[in-house]
């Protein structure tokens, strides 16, 4: 339940100036998406979907983002737990490292990946001797997606784990669970809304990945051309195809956003006031 807004907050001067200053921002956020939605006729959209680059790009995007999501969740969950419960002097460096891809321009990430897995890169000679090529393959697409999307999941998961009451874990241990059992039976279920939210954000970020993929994986139809890259290519030949592709991606993103907004509420209905007791507010310190 939302408490009523106090007079102190609500009554600071008139609210009109806020709205006037904020309105251009709201318009800038809303108008382009409306324009995208209304710019093409159903015939244009079906023509775009029928285009030969549409199918392979959609299929590749679905495959690669699902693989990268599995990797991010499997590797990111233990890492997030370690960040949440570890000694701050040890976790701090890793925490900064995990944040790095969020501030790093995707093009830089792409070059960095080339310098690592490319022919002249750190692992280049090793990979070449094994006969493995990473750049310009679907593997490169997945690697780029993992690097740019992992921080979103790891940060959200670590924040969710930090809110789990440590006493609950101690109780779980005294009731006979190993540290792994307490993690799986107590920490994970209590942090689940945060984990799901983080996974959805990471998936959205991977789905939209463009810059790092273009530089590290290239733009080869059927192999490395994901949806965003297909939009880029379609724009050069047929705008209608680009718009149709964009509409599909936008629809998926809106669905994700709605799910993200609705999930905690649905969760709350399922578990009533649950998490209020097992989970601490974010500001509280760990003893």
């Amino acid at each position, binding site marked *: 339940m939302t408490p009523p807004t106090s007079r102190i907050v609500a009554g600071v001067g008139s609210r009109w100036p806020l709205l006037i200053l904020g309105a251009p921002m709201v318009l800038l956020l809303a108008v382009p998406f409306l324009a995208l939605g209304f710019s093409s006729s159903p015939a244009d959209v079906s023509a775009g979907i029928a285009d030969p680059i549409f199918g392979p790009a959609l299929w590749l995007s679905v495959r690669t983002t699902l693989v990268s999501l599995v990797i991010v969740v499997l590797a990111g969950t233990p890492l997030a737990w370690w960040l949440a419960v570890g000694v701050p002097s040890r976790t701090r460096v890793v925490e900064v490292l995990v944040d790095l891809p969020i501030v790093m321009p995707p093009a830089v990430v792409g070059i960095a990946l080339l310098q690592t897995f490319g022919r002249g890169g750190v692992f280049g000679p090793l990979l070449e001797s094994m006969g493995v090529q990473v750049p310009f393959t679907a593997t490169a697409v997945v690697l780029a997606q993992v690097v740019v999307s992992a921080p979103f999941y790891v940060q959200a998961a670590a924040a969710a784990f930090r809110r789990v*009451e440590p*006493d*609950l874990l*101690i*109780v*779980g*241990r*005294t*009731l*006979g*669970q*190993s540290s792994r*059992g307490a993690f799986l*039976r*107590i920490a994970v*279920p*209590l942090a689940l809304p945060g984990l799901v939210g983080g996974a959805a954000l990471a998936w959205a970020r991977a789905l939209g990945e463009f810059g790092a993929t273009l530089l590290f994986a290239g733009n080869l139809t059927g192999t490395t051309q994901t949806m965003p890259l297909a939009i880029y290519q379609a724009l050069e030949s047929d705008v209608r195809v680009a718009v149709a592709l964009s509409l599909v991606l936008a629809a998926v993103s809106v669905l994700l956003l709605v799910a993200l907004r609705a999930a905690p509420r649905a969760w709350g209905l399922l*578990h*009533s*006031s*649950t*998490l*209020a*007791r*097992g*989970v601490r507010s974010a500001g509280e310190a760990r*003893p």
Partner: protein
Amino acid sequence: MTWRVDVRMRLGDLDLDVQLEGGEEPLALIGPNGSGKTTLLRTIAGAYRPDAGRIEIRGAALFDSAAGLDTAPEERRVGYVPQGYGLFPHLSVADNVTFGLLRYGEGAPSRAERRARAERLLDEVGCGHLASRSPTSLSGGEQQRVALARALATRPAMLLLDEPLAALDARARRNVRTYLAEYLTERKGPALVVSHDLRDVRALGGPVCVIEDGKIVQRGTPDALRAAPATEFVEAFFED
């Protein structure tokens, strides 16, 4: 003596140096905020590793720095009820109690048997009718009883209760205080009960020990401590 604790450790600003022992009766632990009461309970439960010392319950050593022994919390068979009771909000009341039977359900290997045993334990504390409820929908007094039933499910060698009555309003507190005191006395098992309230301490009927700044400063019956308080805190605590 049924149990004996001798621990020395540094944890943040706290310098814990405690030698304590007790018999079959509940021992009340009092002390100012930040004196180390909760830390001591958690250390006995195995959540913190002391720098040095020995913890022994019913002849079994759980921790011994000299022997390099440090039994994992899940092997200690210590019943810990934290402040606020620590019920798992994502599990029903019955599942909270069966949680401890997953490992310590000797003679109750099947799911149905565990459930039946959990219901018996809940009946014992007068909460059988709450089995399918969510812990968050219970009153403070009910949560307290469920937490007690859950802690007892593993047949613990010792009970550690951290402020079992603090979260209750005045009326519930009176009822639960009487109930808890009778229950612990009847059970005849060692228990260490942190308290902030003189009436709770008196209701327990056993001895009291006082911890200040990580050290035990006094121990005895409530009347003895009242007659000759060792510190200002003890004097203030027993003031009427």
